[in-house]
């Protein structure tokens, strides 16, 4: 970065090397997910594992590519906890019942 480029927003920006590293991690997790898909797991366990891995990928994208890691912490605190709370509320409402129907129809 040129030193004289002051002005709008000057803050730490990751290097190309860092972005390529993040990209490699994202690709590696993608291949882990594809591999996992061919394991014969119960659908609820499979879905949970895949979503957990996807949340890791989402966190990498938001932190590095979308730059949230380098913004003021107040922005992340405004955006992230409320969103996660809303999503958790829907999960609590519906997913236990989805799993119950699955157990019933699988005959366990």
């Amino acid at each position: 970065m040129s030193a004289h480029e002051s002005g709008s927003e000057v803050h730490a920006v990751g290097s190309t090397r860092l972005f390529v590293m993040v990209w490699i991690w994202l690709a590696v997790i993608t291949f882990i997910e594809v591999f996992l898909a061919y394991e014969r797991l119960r659908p609820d366990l499979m879905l949970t594992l895949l979503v957990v891995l996807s949340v890791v990928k989402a966190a990498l994208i938001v932190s590095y590519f979308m730059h949230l890691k380098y913004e003021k912490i107040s922005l992340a605190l405004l955006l992230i906890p409320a969103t996660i709370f809303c999503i958790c509320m829907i999960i609590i409402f519906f997913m236990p019942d989805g799993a119950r129907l699955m157990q019933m129809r699988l005959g366990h």
Partner: protein
Amino acid sequence: MAEMKTAVSVPVSSPWSGGGSPFAINSKKFGMWLFIVSDTLTFSALLLAYSYSRLANPNWPRPFEIYPAIAKSTSMTLILLASSLTMVLGVAAAHRNDRAKTVRWLLLTALGGLAFTVLHLTEWFNLFREGYTPWSTPQGVPLFGATFFGITGLHMTHVTIGVIYLVIMSIGYGKGKFTSDDVEVSGLYWHFVDLVWMFVFPMIYLMSVSLTG
């Protein structure tokens, strides 16, 4: 900073006293973040409705063979991830005021988005030929068609809008109509489209791989 006479005494130095930016970002970027949160909740609701149906129906169709469906959708994932990387490099170039390089990275990103859409459409037409439509499947599970085409269709719409957005941005930035901050805002949108696919691909495709071979 403009001096103002007010009846109430307010500590001017506080970022919360108004007139400033408590998040230290420009309003366009803040607006894009708010849009992203609302769009996150839209996709979350759809993916959760899908997940409920997916778990509740153990006889869910599993039509995706390793080739072409899984090979194709995995390549699409890597293409979209790569386009996020070129977008990041475009934003970095814009912050260095390197106009020519920014335009090139933005167009490359748009090209990645276009490749994604074209591959995805060939995948859709494969499924149409096999009898999968938004309202029916050969197995008689219309929920599969509705959720698959509904969610991937909404995502594809986002990608298409993103490609148009990026082309407009690259032309405008090349002509000096937009600033590097505008490029960064378009980058936020593009990364979000990538992020959504990181959930759609495993939850929709990988939960329905064909295990019979």
